[in-house]
């Protein structure tokens, strides 16, 4: 791999991280608005407010960068980066087109799952370093949520890896067949639920529940650092949507996938992102204990059951 290709791959995955979350964010603005009988942004950029998030970005840049006096300043400043970078790394390993991923790792599934778990560490650091009780409560909630939902997610992913017989994301897509839609359905359900919980989006947004604990770990953040947290949330949506498409919907597989493979991947991912938005608009927030109950009493047993079903299927 030449240096030029290396730079090109790095730049393209960075561009993906910067553009796709904005696309999802804008879609969320508009879809959420219309689901609530509103119009959403209409004026930024003249045509149906397409530049709203650009305008928001400009606003965030202009804001003062505040650090609370009692905060652990280095950790406080580092936290937004730590929330964001893992998603960049994980996004780079997602295969988009037959034989193309920005980073081709042999066990990319393990890499992606490991990287996404670090993202929550940024939230934890932010909550701890803010020296704010709401931030701390939010961070602890998010830690509890991570603990509860990482396990069913890993189990669901393990089931897919078991079915494909490989830990490489590209290999999983190669091994995928439409029959998996039924076979891996419980696992897909568990993965989607766990992904929403891991992203801390409604109905699992207790860590940043604004009516309970202000804005959780992000309470003390302003300006660009706050924007980084927001960007990492939407980057997370992009990542988990694409990951879901790759694991359960066959990634680039579809008619004409020699040329249109990338379009299939993005199309399926976008569909999942739409579902995540839809859930956010429709459902109220769960209570903290309901969240734990759902994870331990429902998702983990379902994931284990899925693992057993997959094992039986593989052996037969």
């Amino acid at each position, binding site marked *: 791999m030449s240096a030029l290709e290396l730079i090109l791959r790095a730049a393209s995955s960075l561009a993906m991280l910067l553009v796709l979350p904005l696309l999802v964010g804008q879609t969320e603005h508009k*879809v959420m608005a*219309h689901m*609530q009988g509103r119009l959403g942004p209409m004026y930024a950029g003249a045509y149906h407010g397409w530049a709203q998030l650009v305008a928001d970005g400009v606003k965030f840049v202009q804001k003062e960068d505040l650090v609370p006096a009692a905060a652990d300043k280095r950790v406080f400043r580092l936290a937004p980066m730590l929330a964001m970078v893992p998603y960049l790394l994980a996004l780079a390993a997602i295969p988009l087109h037959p034989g193309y991923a920005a980073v081709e790792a042999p066990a990319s599934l393990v890499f992606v799952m490991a990287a996404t778990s670090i993202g929550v560490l940024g939230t934890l650091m932010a909550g701890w370093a803010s020296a704010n009780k709401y931030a701390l409560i939010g961070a602890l909630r998010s830690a509890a949520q991570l603990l509860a939902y990482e396990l069913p997610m890993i189990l669901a992913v393990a089931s897919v890896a078991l079915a494909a017989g490989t830990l490489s994301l590209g290999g999983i897509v190669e091994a995928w067949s439409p029959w998996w839609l039924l076979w891996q359905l419980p696992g897909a359900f568990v993965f989607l639920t766990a992904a929403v919980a891991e992203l801390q989006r409604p109905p699992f947004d207790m860590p940043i529940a604004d009516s309970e604990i202000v804005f959780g770990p992000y309470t003390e953040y302003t300006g660009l650092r706050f924007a980084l947290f927001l960007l990492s949330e939407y980057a997370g949506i992009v990542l988990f949507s694409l990951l879901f498409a790759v694991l359960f919907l066959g990634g680039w597989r579809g008619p004409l996938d020699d040329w249109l493979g990338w379009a299939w991947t993005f199309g399926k991912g976008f569909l999942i992102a739409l579902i995540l938005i*839809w*859930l956010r608009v*429709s459902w109220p927030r769960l209570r903290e204990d309901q969240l734990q109950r759902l994870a331990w009493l429902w998702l983990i047993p379902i994931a284990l059951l899925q693992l057993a079903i997959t094992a039986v299927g593989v052996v037969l």
Partner: protein
Amino acid sequence: MSERKGIVPGLVKGLATTARTLTRHTQVEEYPHHRPELPARTRGVIALLAENCTSCMLCARECPDWCIYIDAHKETVPATTPGGRDRQRNVLDRFAIDYSLCMYCGICVEVCPFDALFWSPQFEYAELDIRDLLHEKDRLESWVESVPVPPAPDPGAAEVPEVASQRAPARGPRVVGGGAARPARPARPAPSAPPPGDGEG
């Protein structure tokens, strides 16, 4: 909403509701670009037709918020006929409504005996300072042209009281203690002068 059986139906219903709303047109009016169509009787602002005002102060006195300020002076109108008496009339100097106090009850409009006050649907008179909401006569008069013609009553509606009283046959002389239940008594001749203390009855 009505049944509380199970958790799944409610969640699915929520999803269905938002999806249905997504497919429908929004009810948003993009206000600065699209003017709202307000009903003719909208209580937007109170307009003053100054030439009808006699400075009788009824509105200022009836106003529950005391938000109407009226200043007037008397002017002598010289007699038009030789040997006639000079007349006096009120000239309105100041008529102001403090819209930071007004509660839009409309009592002043109702009570004005000379049709000098009207409701106008105009609502764009916000100010940056609450003290600037005290609007003087010229501003109040400028709203008169935005007062719409009142719409005709609905086809089956009862007649407007003013019209009904106009159309009713002229009342005959007053019948003391008159009532439908009692046998009619022969009407008295009209009194030449009202008895003291029985002015309007």
